[in-house]
């Protein structure tokens, strides 16, 4: 047996799940797709006393439009997002990023709520939550709480959820843009990103009316580069825009070295991907 001993409950409703998790006094864990939790259990890096398996909560699996947002249920599998025509038309950057999310067998099982809760700094969905300015809705014994993505990710593999809260759905505002791009480099296709960038741009006459920039793999959490966005608002679209963009993006980040890549290499990679991304976004 790889994991340490635990009890297992499979509630049929969200309120039962919240109750079951609260009853563990902070020693329990939610099991959704299991694609991040099971490795941690197999290595015994986590030893919950109870697993609350939420795979029976079909009401948490949906993709729908609500006013100006697309709302995704926490139990929605990566593969469903990858295939969704609604995501492709309303959240094209997310749609393009999905094939980079691990591998097919992982996408078949992994869930958006699980990926956000795991909060890997080089995972696509946490970065996209920041990029879109998403709101994460969590439920605990005292009711629902709406958490902006920029407060949700606290540190590497650390979110701001209380131990008795479960992510139930995520609201992604639809961005007004006329060009976008998603670029990523990983050591092996589908692995966690060494560096990655998402860009959405809205133009007016010859300038940038608005721009949105998200990066990952280059800090302890994914980042939205708000200072660079502000600096580029109103900038002219001349021949130097790609170099300027790439320079601003790299100087706004300070990646760490680890066994996968040095800080210098990550920075170089991010600069190169930034140039590619802005060219793609402007070619639209």
């Amino acid at each position: 047996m790889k994991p340490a001993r635990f009890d297992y409950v499979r509630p049929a409703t969200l309120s039962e799940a919240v109750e079951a998790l609260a009853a563990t006094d902070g020693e329990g864990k939610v099991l959704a797709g299991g694609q991040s939790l099971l490795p941690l259990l197999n290595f015994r890096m986590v030893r919950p006393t109870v697993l609350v398996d939420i795979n029976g909560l079909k009401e948490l699996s949906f993709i729908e439009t609500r006013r100006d947002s697309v709302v995704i249920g926490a139990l929605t599998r990566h593969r469903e997002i990858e295939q969704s025509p609604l995501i492709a038309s309303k959240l094209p950057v997310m749609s393009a990023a999905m094939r980079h999310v691990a591998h097919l067998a992982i996408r078949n099982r992994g869930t958006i709520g699980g990926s956000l809760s795991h909060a890997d700094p080089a995972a696509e969905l946490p970065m996209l939550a920041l990029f879109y300015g998403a709101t994460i809705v969590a439920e605990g014994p005292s009711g629902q709480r709406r958490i902006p993505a920029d407060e949700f990710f606290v540190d590497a593999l650390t979110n701001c959820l209380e131990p008795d809260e479960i992510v139930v759905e995520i609201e992604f505002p639809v961005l007004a843009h006329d060009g976008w791009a998603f670029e990523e480099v990983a050591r092996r296709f589908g692995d966690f990103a060494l560096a990655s960038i998402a860009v959405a741009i809205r133009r007016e006459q010859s300038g940038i009316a608005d721009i949105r920039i998200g990066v990952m793999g280059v800090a302890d959490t994914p980042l939205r580069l708000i200072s660079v966005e502000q600096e580029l608002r109103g900038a002219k679209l001349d021949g130097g825009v790609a170099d300027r963009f790439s320079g601003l993006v790299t100087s706004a980040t300070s990646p760490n070295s680890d066994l996968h890549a040095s800080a210098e290499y990550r920075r170089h990679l991010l600069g190169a991907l930034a140039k590619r991304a802005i060219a793609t976004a402007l070619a639209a």
Partner: protein
Amino acid sequence: MARLTVTVNGIRHDVDDVEPRLLLSDFLRDTLGLTGTHVGCEHGVCGACTVLLNGDSARSCLTLAIQVNGAEITTVEGLGTPEALNALQSEFREHHGLQCGFCTPGMLITGEDLLRKYPLATDEEIREGLSGNLCRCTGYQNIVAAIRSAAALRQGKAP
């Protein structure tokens, strides 16, 4: 301890006293004796233990046995037999798509799911699809060739 009912390769199994922490990979190999599913890294990186869970590929080392209660599982033993290989297995034999054979069950199951879900029109797409399955003999060329051929046959084209 829980009771588990699961259909594996078309055969229904009712098993009592399943410990919640038992992984699906260990359940298949140790409880049911289906050793075709190979166990490599046991944390979801190598892909050797991939099985079909209700028709979709899944890592059996990242799934608890208790979670597949009521589900249908297909392992490599359920694809074909030594006397009657299925179409993909035949292409693996034709193209010598294996060396030591350790990664082969995972490659075959992943290949089946890829063939059903993606057009696999280019080698790049096939390689992207196989990126979650490691072959430490590094015999990827022939595995890609076998899947390329199976994809062409599926679309009614000569490979």
